[in-house]
Each structure stands twice: as C-alpha cells, then as structure tokens.
C-alpha cells in the first residue's frame, strides 16, 4: 500500500546515504581509536558480521516478497545445538552440517506453507516458530552448552584462507549466490514481482507458492548455516545461541534499503547495512564505551542513517 514512487535519482542517493554514514563512522573511529583501521581489525569486523550476514541474505529475499522471518535467531539456536549434539554423538561433521541445513530448509518450507497455503501473517507465523524452536533447543540441550567437537570443525568459524577468515568467505559466497539468484534468474525476478504485486504475479502465471516456499526455505537454510558458523566460532553449542539476532539482521537489511513493503531493495546494499552495524559495535567496544551508552549511540546512529536517507530522498523528489 501507499508506495511512494521514487525515481531513479533518489534510488542512487538512497544507497549513498548509508554509505556516507559508514564512511563517516570509519573516519571517526580511525581518528579516535588506535588500531581500528588495521587489516586485521577490518577482517575482524567482517568476521563478526559474517554470522548475521549469512542469515541476512535469506532475510533479504523474504523481505523483498513482503514477508518477514522473526524465527531466524531461534533457527540459528536450533541448528547450533542440533549440529553440536549430532557431532558429540559421533556423527561426522560434514554429515551433521548437511543434516542441519536440511532441517533449516524443512522448517523454512513449513513457514512457506503457513504463509502461502494457510495465509498467516508472516510475522505471527514465524513468531510462533521462534518460540517453538527456542523451546526445542532448550529441550535438546537441557539448557546446558554442548561441546567437544571433532578436530577441524572449528575451521568453519575460526579458520583462515590466506589472510581472510573462513566465515567471511562463506558470507561472501552466500551474498554472491544471493545476488545471482535475485538479479540474474527468473526466480529472483519473481521474488521481486511477488513482493511488488502478488495478485498480478499470480495472474501472470507465476507459481506464487513456489516463490514463497523458496524464499522461506532458503531463509531457513541460510539461518541454519549461520547457526553452524556461530557454533564453530564459539566452539560450543549454546542453547541461547542467536537469541534476538533477528532484530539485528532485520535492521541491517532495512538499513540496506530493502523496503518492508516488499518489491524493493538490492542485496548489495545490505552488505553496507551490515558493515555499518558491525563497525559501530566494534568501534564502540574498542573505544571502551560502556554498554549502556552503546545502546543509546546505536539507536541514534540507526535513526540518523535512515532519516538522512529519507530526507535526501524527499529533497530529490522535490526537484
């Protein structure tokens, strides 16, 4: 509803605003904080961003169809604890990871069913599974961390290829695949189309069910993947893993210019949104800003970044 027509000019500006915010932050922290602008710290930030980044790819697709998936945080938890438990019980890591990805796909597909076939509001459907999945995570783990994994599993979260951390590579691969799907395949086209006008898509002969199942399935699978990376990163299956991560992920996606109304947004910009959040947190910890103030600063930066974006769009539209 009420989509405002934004022309080409403002679209360019829109990417620009968040980028400018990012650059300002980068400059600010490099001036105020020693060691901020080192290669290791840059990779550091990217590594910290990777877990959310992987899930953000799936979330972007879901939001482009006009939906939302609140359950990704719980999905990460379930994936983390399941994968940990399977490995501790002696399953080969590769097999365990594959199984967990399948689990994510299955749960995501179930979301697709709720949203498309039953017609539930995505927010509420995934809120329900959020609660269920977190409960299941606690039940499986008994509320205690699961640990003791085979040698080498920690490569996924902690390893390096050359100077580049493995999670960063995984994230980049996910983004490239996500970009390819959204921009270069007909499935991606339908993702935008369904988000833009679902009824028109149906009437154009597009199998809307397949699109909805697809995006939620992918989102579930990517969230599971990001749970696995998280698991390997902390090397212990935490029942709390991923709790409330969904908010950060959604924030990054929306900061990246993806409209929650659906049909709009480019996945490339989501990376900028992610980095903005990552840089902010990293910089504030490096500056040793107390946690309480970090929250305040985070909120204001978020507000400023999107306000600037919107205001510059308005100005562009007036021209």
């Amino acid at each position, binding site marked *: 509803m009420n989509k405002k027509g934004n022309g080409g000019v403002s679209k360019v500006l829109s990417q620009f605003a968040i980028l400018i915010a990012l650059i300002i932050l980068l400059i600010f922290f490099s001036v105020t904080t020693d060691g901020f602008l080192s290669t290791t710290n840059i990779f550091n930030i990217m590594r910290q961003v990777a877990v959310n980044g992987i899930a953000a790819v799936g979330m972007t697709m879901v939001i482009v169809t006009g939906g939302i998936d609140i359950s990704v945080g719980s999905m990460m938890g379930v994936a983390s604890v399941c994968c940990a438990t399977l490995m501790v019980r002696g399953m080969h890591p590769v097999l365990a990871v594959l199984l967990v990805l399948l689990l994510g796909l299955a749960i995501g597909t179930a979301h697709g069913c709720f949203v498309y076939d039953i017609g539930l509001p995505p927010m509420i459907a995934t809120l329900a599974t959020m609660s269920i999945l977190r409960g299941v995570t606690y039940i499986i783990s008994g509320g205690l961390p699961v640990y003791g994994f085979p040698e080498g599993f920690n490569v996924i979260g902690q390893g390096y290829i050359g100077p580049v951390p493995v999670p960063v590579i995984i994230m980049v691969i996910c983004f490239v695949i996500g970009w390819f799907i959204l921009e270069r395949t007909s499935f991606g086209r339908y993702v935008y189309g369904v988000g833009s006008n679902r009824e028109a898509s149906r*009437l154009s002969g597009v199998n809307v069910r397949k699109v909805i199942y697809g995006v939620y399935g992918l989102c579930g699978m990517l969230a599971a993947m990001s749970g696995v990376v998280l698991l390997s990163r902390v090397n212990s299956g935490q029942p709390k893993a991923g709790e409330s991560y969904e908010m950060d992920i959604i924030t990054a996606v929306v900061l990246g210019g993806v409209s929650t109304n659906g049909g*709009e947004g480019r996945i490339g910009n989501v990376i900028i949104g992610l980095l903005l959040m990552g840089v902010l947190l990293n910089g504030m910890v490096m500056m040793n800003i107390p946690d309480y103030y970090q929250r305040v600063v985070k909120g204001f930066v978020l507000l400023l970044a999107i306000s600037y974006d919107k205001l510059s769009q308005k100005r562009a539209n007036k021209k």
Partner: protein
Amino acid sequence: MAEKLLELRHISKKFSGVTALEDVSIDIEPGEVLTLVGENGAGKSTLIKVITGAHHPTEGELWFEGKKIENNSPAKAKELGIGVIYQELNMMPTLTVAENIFYGKELKKGIMLRRKEMLEKSNEIIQELGANIDASKRVSELSIAEQQIVEIVKAVSEDIKLLIMDEPTAPLTNSEIEKMFDIVERLRKRNVAILYISHRLEEVFRISERTVVLRDGKHVITVPTRDIDRQMLIKYMVGRELGQEYPARTTEIGEVILKADHFVNEHLKDCSLELKKGEILGLAGLVGAGRTEMARAIFGADPLKSGELTLHGKKVRIKSPEDAISHGIGLITEDRKNQGLLLNQGIDYNVSYANLKSVCKFGVINKKKETQVTKKYVEAMDIKIHSMGQMAKTLSGGNQQKVVLGKWLATNSEILIFDEPTRGIDVGAKSEIYQLMRRLIEEGKSIIMISSEMPELIGMSDRILVMHDGRITGEISDSEVTQEKILEFATR
C-alpha cells in the same frame, strides 16, 4: 462454420452467497472480435476471470480448441495461448517496464536471464506499437495511461490465440485508443480471436462482429453487431429505455466564484482559469496534459510554486485538501481505488468519510445520523449494495464510483471537480451521473469536469478549456465546440 476456439458451457459462479454468474454459455471463433457488454456488476469481469483461471467456476465447463480445460489456472490459460488485459491494472510497480513485459516468460540462457535482450525487445515492441515509453523506467513512475499501454504491450507480446481485453480504453484518450484499435486489427489479421469489454458503446459498433449482453449475471442475448443499434443494445443491457443522454440546462450561469491565477508547479506552467456559479467547465486534453495536476493544485493536494486562488472575490490560501473542503471545494479523483475509496471499509464509512464533522458532536459520531446520510445517498444514486457495512472492495467498479460520488455529495461542496467521473461506468449509470451533475447545477453548485471522452465533455460542458503540456492552450464556448477544434488545441 469454423471450429470454435473457446466455448463456455453453463458457467455459474457464486461468491460467498452472491451469485455473480448464472448459467452463462458463450463461444468465440478464431479471428473473431466478440464484445461483451452489460451494466456494472453484470458479471463481465468475473466471466473473464473464470476463463483465465483466476476464479474457479462453481459450475460449468470450459472448452478450448475442442478440448475440455481441466484444472484451469492463470498459468494454464497462458500456456493455451490466452492473453488477458484485466480491468484493474496488474503491474508490478517496483519493476521496470521491460521486466513487467517479460514477467512470467523471461528470456533465459540456462538459468541466466538475458536482460539486455529483454530490454531491447521491449523497446522494440513499444515502438512498433507507436507508443513512447522508456522500457527501463520503473512502472511506478508511469501515469495510469502509460501503464495501460504497457499492459497491452505485455499481452500482445505473447504468442496468443485469444486476447481478452476488459475495458482497456478506460484510462486512454482518443489517440491511444486509435493506436489500440490498430493493434486489434493487426491481431485479427493473424487470426487471433478477441474478447472485448467496454462501456463505450461506440467502440462496440466499431470493432465487433458479435455482441454478448449480460445482465445480473445472466446471459441475455448474443447477436451479430450489425443487426442492432445503440438504443436496442442499451435496452438489452439495462432492461429499459434511457431518455435523453445529456440532459439540457435549465438554469442561468452566474458570476465568477473561483479564479485560479498563474498556477505554477512541477507539471503546470502558468495556468489560469475561472469558474462561474452554476457552470460546468470542461477540461480537455490528451493524456499527461496536466488536467489532473490542475485539479489537484486547486484542491491543495499538491503544493504550488506560485499562483493565487480567489474564491467569491476573496484571496484564499489552500494548502491541503482539508483547507479546500472547508472552503467548499471537492475533488472526485480519477483513481478511485488508490485515491478515492477505503476498500476494506463499509459503505457507511466511505460515504461519511469526507464529512464526518456534520454527523459528529464534539468529535463523537452520531451513528443514527450517519446511517441516515449514507442511506440518503445510496438511494439517491441507486447504489447496489447488500448492507451498509459491506466492504467497498466487494462492489463492482461502477458502484464503487458511485460511492465516491456519494462521499463528495455528502460534503455539500459548492464547487466540485470531477476527474474522469464516468470512467468504467455503464451507460445507465453514466446517464444517472449526468443527471446528477445537472441537479447539482440547479442547486446552484459549480462543476469542473475533466474527461477524456469527448462526446460527454461536449455534451455536458458549458465551456471547455483545453490543456496541453501543462498549459491552457485554448477556450471553446459551448456553441462552437467540435472534437476537431479540441484536438487542434490539445496538440498545439
């Protein structure tokens, strides 16, 4: 007789208790143009949607090229070669024109889209059809008319055997309509059958071989078009004869009550106009001439860069629709779905919406009064509804338009601006609206009427201003007006 392309056998369709179609059987031959006419809510669009699989019939069968269609769906119909332009625009607003045209039938290499090729091809088709739209633009940036053209392009770019067009000309002006008829002619030569719906009866006589009339969901008659005339057709449609189409004026025109001087904004380049009491002032022009913009500027819906408005000899500043309404100005917008109606609210909510103050005391609504007011206008305009609380979106297009009119009549505004008031409305309702406009004039109100239908503009207006490219290019008085004259100014 040639083999039938499509046959509908005893189709019925019910919506939660409401019967939209009852035992309708029609057929189309290849290369034939069949028109479908009927009052608003007769079931035309529903019939179309049954054919394209968007709705499933409650009863009945569809046969295509001698085979029964099983498990119909939009995708299936497309496969069979049925193209369709729905009454309501079905565009993906955030996608580009090219993306829309190839939506659901993308050109691919492996799994990769061939994006350049699709863009080039789209531009080609658009140009071939004589339109001037950049295929890389987003659809949300296009005007409604342009979007409609894209719809047509989208439909004919496919390899189709049957093209269904549900009121394709409603948002178009004459020149585009001509272009569209060229397209129809070309398709017919390729032996494509066309099922055409329109409320503009002259179009029916112009292009069709046979005509089907629906009334209240029932099939009334199928006749060769050359065997009937306008009067007979109307009689079949509404079940009675209509009187004088454009009622004559009975009152005198008074002095100037509204004066807009040198309006300038994004789309308007120095426009001035005067409206006299008891007058119907027509605004003519081609698509994109800026008529809607002028109306919106007067109404305060869009900001002005410069310009002055005088009401009753006093300068006023109108900054918002709220101001305009309190000064006694009303605007019946051209886009009833997006700008006129609260689609998922009841009739009563809609009718009282612009004038809640009159049924309120200290901000508290007097429900009884509200119901009375609503009833008054529902009856006055003969809006067909089941109940006051019925949601506006479940009404047929014509009845929706009447609800919007009702809303503005309820405000008792002195000056009413009608932007395409009869778009998508059947002949019966049209004549009711004309009578209504006359009645308003007789009550001492003044009207600015924007319309792309020349005959009604000429028939109703006392004076016509013609716009082109954001300027007022000419003024024609009632006595000397002709279509040619308007067109001359409109393209100047």
